[in-house]
């Protein structure tokens, strides 16, 4: 067992755990995108970054790949980290605004604007499809080709795959494919209707008005102002 300090709390981790696994064990929520419990950690989306170390040498590392080590000091929600996560989501949004997963992340992190030219890409190169195909299905039908701006995920020579078993795992795990959002409309491109953390009913009622168990996920229920203000 190792001891490390997360957000001021002394926590214990097993040898071989990552910072992310340790934080989750203790209920500390670090947002992720390319991370998936059943697959190896890739560390490409950088959303799970946390600040480690102190003073001048403090730096940001991806918590899904960085190992929990003895005496490590970790801050999961420092100013630097929050600012980084917000801009990273902005980059994701500007590439693929029709992904519900990305819109939800944006709402969660309170990203209100997108300042880059919007591209409507189908892929954000998180690599989840590659990993599920290789690790869970053992097929290795798709992978990364090229690099940098020209990178893409495809089959060899862009031909129909000879080893694909049509399991659909890649589509299942893809954050761009699944739940194509209908809500995001130009020019704002930022939706936030599904996971907005600001319930509007509290402006008009003293209690949350949702009785359907969808507490806090509002914004859709109160559409018109009630006839009289009921404030106690």
């Amino acid at each position, binding site marked *: 067992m190792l001891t490390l300090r997360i957000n001021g709390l002394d926590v214990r981790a097993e040898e071989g755990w990552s910072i992310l696994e340790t934080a989750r064990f203790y209920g500390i929520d670090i947002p992720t995108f390319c991370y998936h419990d059943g697959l190896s950690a890739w560390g490409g989306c950088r959303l799970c970054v946390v600040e480690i170390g102190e003073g001048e040498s403090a730096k940001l590392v991806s918590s899904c790949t960085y190992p929990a080590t003895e005496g490590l000091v970790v801050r999961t929600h420092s100013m630097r980290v929050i600012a980084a996560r917000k801009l990273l989501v902005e980059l994701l949004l500007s590439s693929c605004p029709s992904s519900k997963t990305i819109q939800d992340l944006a709402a969660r992190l309170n990203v209100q604007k997108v300042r880059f030219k919007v591209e409507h890409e189908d892929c954000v190169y998180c690599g989840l499809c590659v990993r599920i195909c290789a690790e869970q299905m053992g097929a290795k039908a798709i*992978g990364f080709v090229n690099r940098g701006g020209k990178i893409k995920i495809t089959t060899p020579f862009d031909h129909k795959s000879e080893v694909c078993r049509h399991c659909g795992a890649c589509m299942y795990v893809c954050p761009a494919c699944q739940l194509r959002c209908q809500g995001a409309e130009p020019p704002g491109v930022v939706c936030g209707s599904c996971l907005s953390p600001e319930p509007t009913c509290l402006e008009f009622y003293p209690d949350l008005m949702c009785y359907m168990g969808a507490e806090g996920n509002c914004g859709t229920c109160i559409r018109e102002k009630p006839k009289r203000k009921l404030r106690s």
Partner: protein
Amino acid sequence: MELADKGNNKNLLSILQDVQKECGYLPEERLREIAVMLDMPLIDVCGVATFYKSFSLTPRGRHQVKVCLGTACHVRGADRIVEELERKLDVRRGETSEDGEFSLEAVMCLGCCAIGPVVVVDGKYYGQVTTAKVESILKTIREAIYAR
């Protein structure tokens, strides 16, 4: 070439380099053979072949025209040279002309900064190139081709 034991992933890069040298590019058939020989998933071989700039999956032209776009050449106006060549050869950088004669490539630093901007045609170096000189360089090459 110093090769470690053939028959495992260890040597993929040097095998690809040998094929590139031999064929001038990496034919699809050879890549499939390599994947079988090294017992690797084909997509991994493709992933490596497409990652590195030295490899080309399409045949290159009979004549290679390389323009150095290293920083020293860039500050001396190498960008204009590439544009001029693109215009004159009717081919975009990184591509081969329709008739298969010329490939135009922008390379990053040939280490000949003293004579920049530099253009290399089939291994012959031309230094201190200006947009005005491009025509005369191409003339020399075309004359050599027609003389064959």
